[in-house]
Structures are given as structure tokens and as C-alpha cells.
């Protein structure tokens, strides 16, 4: 008697055979003790393995976010599609710091009444940008926000509020690899600058940018504030129904050395480059300033003050700080105290900021430089010594 192959027996066990095959196998098993024994062995082993694997199943408390909410999150991520440019920011604001950004995005919600999921954070999510001329770092005391971090319902409600009120006018398209700076300039419409004397040719990727509008639902935003225990902060009535138009132009990123590639093919192994090789990686991103239009009767400074209070400042502190910043031309980067070091530097002939995170857990030190020159925002990230990157940034062509 010919015995059944293991493939058939295993599939039989899982009811994965066609009805005819199943019946045929069952008939054979009644007559063949060898196959019956083989099936018993397979069954016992499959059961033992299943018991082990069952430990990994999500428990009730580990169930996923409801699908519609998850979809809303994905949509907001999509509408904020500026993937490559954020690689450095996801590095900068690592997973460990992420819950904090949920809280922060809540704050920024108030400042300009728009925000996105707290992943892939970029400037316009920090604050309403009108036309960026300068950058300012705002160290924030996060103790207050810490309480909100755990409140995922609140974060979800914020994310839902945005996905309900966004209209996309220019859909972002997938990133595109271009051959050289001239081609990148042609795609994006601005003069692209590169690292002079780079040891390797860069991989140049253009991002399409996007344009969208948000109609503010003041009552809903206020309800969220109330729910967060801050009914003392009353959003101005002028905010109701205000349309905020955001236009994010196309940008370019140049990746030198062994960098994680955002457009890696589906196999994606190359996305996970050993940290030791990442030392050769330098990413230079450039994007013309996004523009944000708000109705003239929306008082941005008032909203900024409210946002600062929400972050834990007293009304007086918030008021005096809000006065010192020109909110219509400054990209304000709220930085949790102790999250990383930063300092003001002169780079590319202008004032910029260097963010530095110490090496830890086998990961080399991570540095990011941020500066604005002639209406273009530059962000450069690299690993290891800060000086090396500064030298590169000072010699862009």
C-alpha cells in the first residue's frame, strides 16, 4: 500500500483539503495503520506547538484599536505624507518618547487647531506655520502632559476629529527617486543643494507635498479640552468653522552612505541596517517653507498662549513667552526637558539648532541639525560626532 505524503496528512488535520481529497484520505486512514500512526504523531506535535503559540495571542486588554479608528490614523498619516523627511525625526524622537508626542500634539491642536497622528512628526505638526523664517526650541516640562499620555481615548478622539474635518486638495503621491540635483530641482521647483565632496553619490528622493484644508469644529475641540480637565481654557468663538488651509510643497531628501531606505522593496530587510553600518549615513532633507492660511479673525497669539498653558505654564508665563515669539514665522520645536541635548549653532551662515542624543543601547549618538535659509528648511541627520555633520552642512554646494 502506498502511504500518504506528510503534506496531505498535515493538510487533512487542518481541513485544508478539498472535500474529495478529504474523503479519500479519511478512507485510506481507516485501512492503513502506518498512516494513522503518522497522523497521530503529526496531530500530537501540532497540538503541542499550538499550545505554545497560544501564549502569544493578544489578550482582551491587547486587542487592536477599532478598525475605523485605525483607518482614520492611517488617513491622517497619509495626508501628512512626507515620509523620508521624517525618518530623521522618528530617529530623533524615538519610540520611547512617542507617547509624549501624543500629549504634545494635543497641545498643538489648540495652538493652531490641527495636528496628526504622533508618528512621523514634522514641523507643521508642531505648530501652525505661516511662512517659516526662523526656528526656536521650546523646552517643555512634561510632567503635566504625562498624565494625558496614558489617555488613549483622548488621543483617539483628537485623531478622529481631524480625520473628520480634513479635505485634501492635493493628494500626496509616492516618493520618487531622481538621478541628480538638476532633476530634483525640476520636480520640486527649487534649487536643491548637496554635500560637496561627498564620498558617495546620494540617493535622491523627492516628496510630492500635499495641500489640505481643515474646518475647525470648535465645540468638539472644546469638548476634548474639557474632557482633559482643562475647561479653564476656553477656545475663542472666532475659531468655530474657521478654515485653515495648509500647503506643504514638494521636498527632497539626499541619503548618503548606508541609510535606512523608506522606499525599500517589500522584502524590506535593507530597512533594518545594523547600527554599526549606519555610521556612514547622512540624510539631508530640504523643503521650502509650508504655508498656512488662517482667517484674519483668528488670533494666533491667543491660541499659542493657551497651548503653552496647556503644557503646564502659568497664564503669566505663557503670556510673556508668547510675546517673545513671532508665531507667524517661527517653527517652534517643543522639546521635552531632558529628552536630548540641543544648542544653538551657526550653520550655513545662519542661526540653527543642533540636537544631540547620547549613544545608548548599542546605538551610536544621533545628531540632527535644523536651520532655515532663504525660505528653505533644512534638516540633516547623522550618527556619531556632531562636528562631522556641522562641517558637511557648512560646505553645501
Amino acid at each position, binding site marked *: 500500500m502506498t502511504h500518504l*505524503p*506528510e*503534506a*496531505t*496528512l*498535515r*493538510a487533512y488535520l*487542518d481541513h*485544508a483539503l478539498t472535500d474529495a481529497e478529504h474523503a479519500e484520505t479519511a478512507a485510506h486512514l481507516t485501512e492503513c495503520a502506518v498512516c494513522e500512526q503518522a497522523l497521530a504523531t*503529526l496531530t500530537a*506535535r*501540532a497540538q*503541542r*506547538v*499550538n499550545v*505554545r*503559540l*497560544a*501564549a*502569544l*495571542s*493578544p*489578550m*482582551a*486588554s*491587547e486587542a*487592536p*484599536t477599532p*478598525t475605523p479608528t*485605525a*483607518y482614520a*490614523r*492611517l488617513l491622517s*498619516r*497619509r495626508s501628512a505624507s512626507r515620509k523620508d523627511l521624517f525618518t530623521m525625526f522618528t530617529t530623533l524622537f524615538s*519610540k520611547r518618547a*512617542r507617547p509624549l508626542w501624543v500629549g504634545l500634539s494635543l497641545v498643538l491642536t489648540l495652538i493652531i487647531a490641527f495636528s496628526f497622528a504622533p*508618528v512621523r512628526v514634522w514641523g507643521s505638526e508642531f505648530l501652525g506655520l505661516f511662512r517659516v523664517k526662523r526656528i526656536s526650541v521650546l523646552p517643555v516640562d512634561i510632567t503635566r502632559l504625562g498624565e494625558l499620555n496614558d489617555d488613549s481615548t483622548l488621543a483617539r478622539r483628537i485623531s478622529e476629529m481631524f480625520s473628520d474635518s480634513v479635505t485634501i486638495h492635493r*493628494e500626496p503621491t*509616492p*516618493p520618487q527617486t531622481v538621478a541628480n540635483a538638476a532633476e530634483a530641482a525640476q520636480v520640486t521647483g527649487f534649487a536643491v543643494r548637496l554635500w560637496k565632496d561627498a564620498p558617495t553619490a546620494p540617493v535622491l528622493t523627492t516628496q510630492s507635498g500635499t495641500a489640505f484644508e481643515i474646518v475647525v469644529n470648535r465645540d468638539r475641540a472644546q469638548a476634548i479640552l474639557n474632557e482633559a480637565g482643562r475647561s479653564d481654557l476656553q477656545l475663542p468663538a472666532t475659531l468655530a468653522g474657521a478654515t485653515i488651509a495648509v500647503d506643504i510643497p514638494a521636498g527632497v531628501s539626499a541619503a548618503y552612505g548606508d541609510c535606512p531606505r523608506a*522606499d525599500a522593496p*517589500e*522584502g*524590506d*530587510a535593507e*530597512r*533594518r541596517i545594523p547600527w554599526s553600518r549606519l555610521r556612514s549615513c547622512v540624510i539631508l532633507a530640504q523643503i521650502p517653507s509650508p504655508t498656512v492660511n488662517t482667517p484674519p479673525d483668528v488670533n494666533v497669539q491667543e491660541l499659542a498662549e493657551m497651548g503653552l498653558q496647556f503644557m503646564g505654564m502659568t497664564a503669566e508665563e505663557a503670556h510673556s513667552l508668547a510675546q517673545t515669539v513671532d508665531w507667524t514665522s517661527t517653527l517652534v520645536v517643543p522639546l521635552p526637558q531632558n529628552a536630548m541635548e540641543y544648542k544653538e549653532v551657526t550653520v550655513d551662515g545662519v542661526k540653527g539648532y543642533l540636537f544631540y542624543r547620547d549613544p545608548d*543601547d*548599542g546605538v551610536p549618538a544621533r545628531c540632527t541639525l535644523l536651520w532655515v535659509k532663504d525660505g528653505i528648511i533644512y534638516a540633516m541627520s547623522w550618527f556619531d560626532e556632531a562636528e562631522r555633520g556641522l562641517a558637511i552642512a557648512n560646505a553645501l554646494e
Partner: protein
Amino acid sequence: MTVAQRNARLTAAARTQPTDREQVFESIFAEHYARVYGVLFRLVGDRAEAEDLALEAFWRLWERAAHWPENMGGWLYRVATNLGYNALRAGKRRAVYETDALLPEAPPNPELAAETAAERQRVRQVLEHLPARDAQLLILRHSGLAYKEIAAALQIAPASVGTLLARAEKEFERLWENDHDPSA
């Protein structure tokens, strides 16, 4: 019309129509999100990370909207299991994640939770040491994918799923037993 038929029809339409593309994508998301999450959670053991990776997989699918693969489900599970398996291997902080994951709901018996965490860690350690395909096969099957779906995800012949699954189980068990014997 079944969901699969509807999707097939929509997929064909979507190659030219952006509006349909949106519809297809949303229906694919609705159909697969929870299960993609389940696959990833089993691999990484952290709710936030699993959700993030699940969105990442869908994100990549969206990015390919102009050239969607014929079998979007298969493509999705392939990308998701690759992401999950890589994260599993990269996940030095696994133990921490697991502790965190158990925190939100205080278990009636803390001993039990610690045991579950330890068990999970051991199972993942074994998966981590299995060849990628074996680990992915076991997780996909345990997440409830049919043989045909597994075959599409792992790009193997449907007829060989049974053999490979049996082999993966054998190997899992061998490593599990070795794990109990530190000298092995």
C-alpha cells in the same frame, strides 16, 4: 458577490481610477486590519508597536497604489510578517515591552501574568531562532490564515504548505526542547 470578488473587480478598476482606489484600499483595510494586527502582535508582543507596524504595512500598500499586486492580501501579509519578524529579531527590549503590555489591566494573579510573560518570551526566542519562513508560517497559520492565503503570503506552492508546516513544527519543537536544556 463575495468580498474577494468585489475586491478583485475593484482592484482592476483601481489601476486607473483614484476614487475606486480609495474604495479598494478602505475595503482591504477593513477586511485585513485586525488580522494583520494579530499576526504582528504575536511576533512583537507590544500593542503600540504591532499597531504601528500594521499601519506601516498598509501604508506601503497605499504607496504602491499605482502598481497594486494581483493578490493584495498575500502581499500585505508578506510585508507584515517581514516587518514583524525583523522587529522580533531587532527587539532587544522585548522583555520590557512585555512587562508594559501587561500593565494596563492588573491581573488578578500577578504570578500568572509573570508566567505568561515568561512563556511569551520563550516562545518568541524560539521563533527568533527559526528560519524566517518557518516562523512566519507558524504565526500565519496560528493567526487563522488558510493554506491558500499562507501560500500567497510566503510565495510558496499551496500544495507544499502542509509539508513546510509539519517541518516548521518539528523544528519549533526541537528548538523548544533545546531551550530547556542550556547545554544543547
